[in-house]
């Protein structure tokens, strides 16, 4: 028996997706980014509407320059873990910059956002503790719960009352209760009702961790995320985030006012047993953070663009999530239709993410788009037009 025989179901699902000559949606190659909004795919200039590059900073000239300078000055890698030889002056500087940005006293920088969730969640919630996760949590949060030893309880998505009920059932049981929510949920772009969760946290004495991966640089007057936008930053004990979205680079972090965070450096395996970020990434990230702080107009443009895309797709008769946010997903019913739709969009020059169950809420396939501050209104209108054409071809525009 082959070691791969357990994946026969997966293999046949993949061949169903690529049947009839369709592309493998998980193997798209962007041959070369031409700008933040256009990439070369299959030799064609393609509009990018699925990169999470919310502010377009992956192509920031200032960040590129900073990376080049840092590589020249410090080399291209650290060759070591944060707790051995992998902490350089730049890592400390970045942690201090993030403390200042978030107005928090402590910060840990990880090599990816995925590891930031893995490393904080698994270390914070120990054997006798309880971890309460939103049902629609990102894979990195679920994986963090499996790496740790806490008892894991799911609550209904974005439902603070349901969380409250589950915390009430735990009343009187010893152990800390750590609640994990996301700022903006990555699949549907819906925003957490953070105020309601903060109230439950205060009432029950639980701890609250917010993964603001998609909301930092996007929401809040200063771009600190949903906790800032909702005025409840004091109730959020830990903010986890990533550099790979609004900051355009790679890496992750956790910030907090709790001094105990520094102890986590000595027991978080995804922090300890992997090499630290290279100097050029740190330098680019700091330059991008400066840009995020100094150019609040990027956030205004981003939200204008999000509303334009959301309204356009709805007007084209497509079903989307209820909120206009930088993640706008078109909800379809049938996987085969979603795959064909996605292929046609790419034929016509629009790249979006194809998200298939079980990675999506409610078993619906999604055409997941993400918008950027750097998209022009014409690019958005063009993408909407192409969506409308394909919807028409496939007979799935409800309104028409």
């Amino acid at each position, binding site marked *: 028996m082959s070691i791969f025989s357990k994946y026969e179901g997966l293999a046949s699902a993949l061949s169903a997706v690529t049947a009839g000559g369709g592309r493998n949606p998980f193997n798209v190659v962007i041959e070369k980014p031409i700008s933040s909004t256009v990439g070369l795919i299959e030799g064609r200039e393609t509009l990018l509407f699925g990169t999470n590059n919310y502010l377009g900073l992956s192509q920031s000239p200032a960040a590129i320059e900073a990376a080049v300078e840092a590589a020249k000055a410090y080399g291209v890698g650290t060759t070591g873990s944060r707790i051995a030889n992998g902490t350089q002056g730049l890592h400390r500087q970045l942690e201090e910059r993030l403390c200042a940005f978030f107005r928090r006293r402590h910060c840990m920088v990880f090599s990816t956002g995925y590891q930031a969730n893995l490393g904080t969640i698994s270390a914070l919630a120990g054997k006798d503790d309880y971890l309460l996760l939103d049902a629609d949590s990102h894979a990195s949060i679920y994986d963090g719960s499996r790496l740790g030893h806490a008892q894991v*309880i799911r609550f209904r998505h974005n439902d603070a009352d349901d969380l409250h009920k589950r915390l009430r059932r735990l009343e009187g049981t010893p152990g800390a209760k750590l609640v994990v929510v996301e700022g903006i949920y990555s699949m549907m772009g819906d925003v957490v009702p953070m105020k309601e969760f903060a109230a439950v946290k205060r009432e029950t004495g639980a701890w609250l961790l917010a993964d603001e991966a998609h909301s930092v640089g996007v929401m809040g007057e200063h771009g600190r995320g949903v906790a800032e936008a909702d005025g409840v930053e004091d109730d959020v004990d830990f903010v986890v985030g990533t550099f790979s979205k609004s900051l355009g680079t790679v890496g992750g972090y956790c910030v907090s006012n709790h001094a105990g965070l520094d102890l986590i450096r000595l027991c978080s395996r995804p922090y300890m047993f992997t090499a630290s970020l290279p100097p050029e990434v740190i330098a680019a990230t700091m330059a991008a953070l400066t840009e995020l702080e100094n150019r609040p107009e990027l956030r205004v443009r981003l939200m204008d663009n999000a509303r334009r895309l959301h309204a356009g797709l709805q007007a084209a008769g497509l079903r989307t999530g209820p909120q206009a946010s930088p993640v706008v997903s078109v909800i379809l019913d049938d996987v085969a239709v979603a795959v064909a739709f996605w292929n046609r969009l790419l034929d016509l020059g629009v790249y979006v993410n194809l998200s298939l169950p079980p990675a999506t809420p409610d078993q619906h396939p999604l055409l997941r788009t993400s918008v950027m501050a750097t998209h022009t209104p014409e690019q958005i209108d063009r993408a909407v037009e192409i969506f409308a054409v394909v919807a028409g071809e496939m007979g799935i525009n409800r309104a028409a």
Partner: protein
Amino acid sequence: MSETVASVSALIVKTLLANPKVPRDINGSSKIVEDLAFDSLAVMNFVMEIEDTLDVSVPLDRLADIRTIDDLAACIVSLKQAS
């Protein structure tokens, strides 16, 4: 209210049968993944429904050891007794 494994098991079967996609011939010894063709997400979502009915939370690590409907019923009864 004191539930027994048999009563909880019957309640689970009843809840499952409300879903038209579930085979009609299930009973306490039916295997949740194999016989019901549930994936891991479907299992977690269906357990949430049972949790609401019985006012209990089943930690995810407990689910890992559960194969049959009766296993789930036994787990819920032991959780209810512990609380």
